[in-house]
């Protein structure tokens, strides 16, 4: 049965993210972006309300994620994608193009959101911008 609204775990995670001063982004069980907070908007280059929910393919197209060695990353290869696919926390770094046109390198901790021991409803990723090389 298709759900008419997100699982409570996603509702609570989104509420948590809205209150965090740390950049945070949430994807659902399909890998689609469903929310990022104001702190994340500073790095992504545009507020969530301007962008809204995005399918995985679309956010990959917009943000062009890639490794620190400039290799392109598919959505499922980003820390959030790996956390979703392998159902485990992931910590890694990668680069992307912000919607303000600036390239950024970030380090990410992504953790799966389980509503039941066998049911993953999404992934929450918190991240920081890596300091520019001196």
């Amino acid at each position, binding site marked *: *049965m298709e*759900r*008419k*609204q*997100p*699982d*409570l775990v996603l*509702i*609570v995670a*989104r*509420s948590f993210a809205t209150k965090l001063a740390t950049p945070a982004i949430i994807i659902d069980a399909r890998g689609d972006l469903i929310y990022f907070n104001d702190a994340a908007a500073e790095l992504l280059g545009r507020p969530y309300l301007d962008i809204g929910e995005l399918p995985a393919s679309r956010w990959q197209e917009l943000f062009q994620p890639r490794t620190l060695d400039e290799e392109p990353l598919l959505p499922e290869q980003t820390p959030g994608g790996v956390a979703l696919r392998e159902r485990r926390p992931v910590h890694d770094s990668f680069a992307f193009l912000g919607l303000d046109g600036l390239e950024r390198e970030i380090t990410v901790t992504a953790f799966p959101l389980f*509503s*039941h*021991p066998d*049911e993953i409803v999404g992934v929450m990723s918190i991240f920081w911008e890596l300091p520019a090389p001196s």
Partner: protein
Amino acid sequence: MIIRVWGARGSLSAPGPETVGYGGNTSCVEVELADGTTIILDAGTGIRELGQRLVERDPDVLHVCLTHLHLDHVEGLGFFAPLWTPGWKLRFWGPPSATTALRDRVARYLSPPLFPMGLAEAPAESVFEDVPREPWRVGPAIIEAETVEHRGPTVGFRIEEEGRVFVYLPDHEPYLTAALDDEPEWISGWALAEGADLLLHDSQYTEEEYAQRIGWGHSSVDQAAAFARAAGVRQLGMFHHDPMRSDRELEELYDRVAEIVQEDQEPPIIAREGMEIMLGAGPRH
């Protein structure tokens, strides 16, 4: 279906002259379906008197749906006559837990030193199950349970029979995780309550009280009214009355809620012990 309120008080039973009008028993609501099937929502102290009425009949199957296991929602079980009478079959449904079976969680209360008897000593045949993730059928009704915002694992229930919908959300703080003007899909419990003919909803606090108790798991009456409006509920029933609230104070809160509801909604009600509400056709047995 017929909905009977046996207890509408929240948190702690509150008997006395100040509460005699709406009653002091904690949460318990009986739903009688068209074929006579009995569903019981929560097992607060109100279930004691319901049990006395039930054992006047021949033993049967009862469906007991527990929203959560806070004491005010299970403390009546020790005095629920069908549980202690051979021949009755009790099917319990409750909130899921990743670690502990529902029977074991209920048995924490129904065991010494909190209670003199153990659940295993109860002669009724009892089955305990976490609520299914999909809607399920009980007699002629479809029941749906959904986890909702409250302290600890908690579900609400939606019961639909012959196109009429009754929703029960006695302990719920939807606006802890949503703003009043948020999109409805981001409001806890919204889909469960959407389009209900009757919603019995947590209305524990005044606005002033809520400001001091944010995160305690309950709603103000204004929030209850806002939630009912967001979900397109036809009629809101104020439920889970604060134990400190007198009958007179409840009626003052009612006046406030009545001002908030919209023209396309029925006037709200204050859930009261002994209240009986019929949705659609009544039992045909």
